[in-house]
């Protein structure tokens, strides 16, 4: 090799090229774009990332598929009908209309005799059997309770609907009149207190809670992923000393911006994949949760994820810039992971129990926990949309402060190796 490097040999790489690259004007964003690209590419190439992504997506699919398979209400209700052809028709129509209204999947079988129907119900082959009258009778194994399960509620509802049909029939109306009476337009339901934009339907309300729950969980997972990557990435650049090579070409804030945006792109992409998998899995099993999930609910979950990421990412980066060794990372993770965990843990009582104690209300307004507790509060119907917006604004303002502070800490600490840098030292530099 020494022969190659003889003194007479001309320097390679266009030593005499007309315009050296550095003399071209370079926008502030151009190195940032390169950094973003690097962050995305190294993750996509990393085996560890792909494994973690696969696990996350499998878990997402399972979260949609498993409840749909386990939940009795979502299975198909098998109903039998006994009677003359003329009486069986209207019964079928009433059952189907009721099932559609209640969001129940129904399969109606014609059974030759009442005795056979009783046998099938007793054997568990049929959930219910309607013996067309008059008087019409619904045969079930155990007495239904309207509040026990959607299927029970359906049985009770059907009994009223069929009874309505019978009483109309006794009025000797024309068939057109009967049809008109049996397909009423529902009167308006006016809730006195519910958050704006909330449709009154129970199924839709539950779907919102479901989406909020999924959103809270996804926010937890993605903030931990993203925060960890940022922390480790910053420490790696510092501990391998590549930082000095980078800072000879770019400014600290460009480096910081590139890292946060690059990992943000990966996080958002991952969230989009999770939604896609959830929707696809929901379509396969016919889960009703997603069928009712309005885009607005998804949008809100996405907005809080982004806000949370913006707030926490800069803090993770600042924390990473304070230490030079991976071993020191653990101690720094704790104060950042703790509020994330608290936010996540307190979102569940809100969603499941509809609880909105003073503590939870406070947490919904505090920037570190708002990304979890505020969407939960909204889904539970405990706050109005303007309150959600106000809390989001508060988080946004805190993020602006966090960015300024973290930018100064990062710029001040990133070139200091060795001992852990104190925050005050970093701010002074």
């Amino acid at each position: 090799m020494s022969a190659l490097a003889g003194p007479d040999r001309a320097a390679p790489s266009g030593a005499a090229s007309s315009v050296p690259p550095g003399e071209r004007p370079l926008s502030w964003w151009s190195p940032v774009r390169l950094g973003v690209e690097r962050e995305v590419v190294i993750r996509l190439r990393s085996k560890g990332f792909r494994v973690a992504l696969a696990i996350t997506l499998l878990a997402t699919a399972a979260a949609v598929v498993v409840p749909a398979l386990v939940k009795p209400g979502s299975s198909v209700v098998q109903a039998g009908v006994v009677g003359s052809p003329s009486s069986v028709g209207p019964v079928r129509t009433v059952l189907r209309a009721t099932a559609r209204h209640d969001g129940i999947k129904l399969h109606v079988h014609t059974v030759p005799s009442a005795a056979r129907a009783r046998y099938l119900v007793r054997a568990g082959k049929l959930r219910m059997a309607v013996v067309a009258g008059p008087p019409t009778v619904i045969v079930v194994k155990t007495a239904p309770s309207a509040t026990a399960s959607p299927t029970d509620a359906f049985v009770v509802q059907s009994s009223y609907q069929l009874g309505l049909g019978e009483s109309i029939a006794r009025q000797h109306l024309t068939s057109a009149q009967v049809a008109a009476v049996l397909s009423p337009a529902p009167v308006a339901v006016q809730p006195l207190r519910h958050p704006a934009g909330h449709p009154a339907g129970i199924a839709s309300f539950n779907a919102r809670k479901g989406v909020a729950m999924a959103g809270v969980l996804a926010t937890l997972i993605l903030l931990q992923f993203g925060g960890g990557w940022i922390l480790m990435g910053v420490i790696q650049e510092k501990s391998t000393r590549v930082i000095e090579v980078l800072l000879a070409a770019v400014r600290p804030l460009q480096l910081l911006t590139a890292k946060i945006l690059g990992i943000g792109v990966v996080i958002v992409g991952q969230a989009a994949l999770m939604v896609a998998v959830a929707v696809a899995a929901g379509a396969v099993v016919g889960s009703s949760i997603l069928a009712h999930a309005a885009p607005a609910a998804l949008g809100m979950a996405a907005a809080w994820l982004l806000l949370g990421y913006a707030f926490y990412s800069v803090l993770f980066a600042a924390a990473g810039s304070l230490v030079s060794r991976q071993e020191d990372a653990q101690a720094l993770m704790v104060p950042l992971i703790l509020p994330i965990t608290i936010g996540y843990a307190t979102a569940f009582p809100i969603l499941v129990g509809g609880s909105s104690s003073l503590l939870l209300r406070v947490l919904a307004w505090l920037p570190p926990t708002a990304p979890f507790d505020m969407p939960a509060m909204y889904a539970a119907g405990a706050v109005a949309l303007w309150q959600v917006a106000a809390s989001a604004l508060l988080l946004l303002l805190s993020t602006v402060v966090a960015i300024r502070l973290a930018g100064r800490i990062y710029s001040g600490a990133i070139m200091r190796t060795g001992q852990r840098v104190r925050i005050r030292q970093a701010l002074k530099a």
Partner: protein
Amino acid sequence: MLELDRLSRRYGSTVALDQLSLSVPSGQVFGLLGPNGAGKTTAMRAVMGLVALDEGAVTWDRRPLDADRRRLFGYLPEERGLYPGMGVEQQVVYLGRLHGMGRSEAIRAAGEWLDRLGLAERSSSKVEALSLGNQQRVQLAAAMVHSPRVLILDEPFSGLDPPGVDEMSGVLRDQARSGRVVVFSSHQLDLVEHICESAAIVNRGRVVANGSIDELTTGGQRRLVVKVDGDREGAWASTLDGVRVSEVSGGMVRLALSSDVDPSTVLQAALAVGPVQHFAFERRRMSEVFREAVREVEGAATGAGPGAATGAGRGTGAATGTGAGSLAGAASPGGAGGGRR
């Protein structure tokens, strides 16, 4: 022309740079020499904008430096650093592009440098999979990929084997020949004196000597190297007036002569001990230039000039006696691997 004008930087009570001033002309290899802790790295970081200065300024072609102009600089930091998990070529291309190169341009330049440094076959390997020597080559390629007009190389020779040193000095010379500003630092003064054409010697944040290698090594006291058969210590010379034993190595006694000393009196004293096998004048070594400059500066500053560690050149030179790199022996026992992980 790169000019460092009265650079000062303190870290608490430690003075890293103390009014350090220096002009580096383009077209020659310029050495920034001095013991560890003299301020070389801080000065280079200041040039690269990585250290905030308390005072002073760096100019290039008489204009101040900003981020845009610094992108025309190539920098090899003392503490080498690359992304360990990133591919060799990918990494060099990335750093080229951060300096403003287009994608295809960066790929071509990276290919050329990796080729020249014998790394063409490893271009898709991860950096962490390479030997330390090859990692150093990648680091050099990363500093050179964007055809910098000014090269700032901090201890480029440290950790290199002899072929590596030749390779590095070849690159430095080529760059100087094509009209660039080439500055490198080293704490091994004697090892690099044949590599640079001009040098500044720094100690405690100040330039203590500055000039072409010729000017530096021909000035000062005359050096006489004497070998007397059977004599290992050179004790005979220490009694002579105006003669100082600066180093003894393998029976070769290196003497510093005051201007009023007649060499023939030295020859007679030597002959009185035994047959003289070697008797010749030599140029000053850079380590001697350094020691004498430090003694002068500190003598002027304190009057008495005990000069703590550095002033005791006589003793340490004789004790370590390793020939080249004796300054490294005196100032930094770590030697070549000093700052390496």
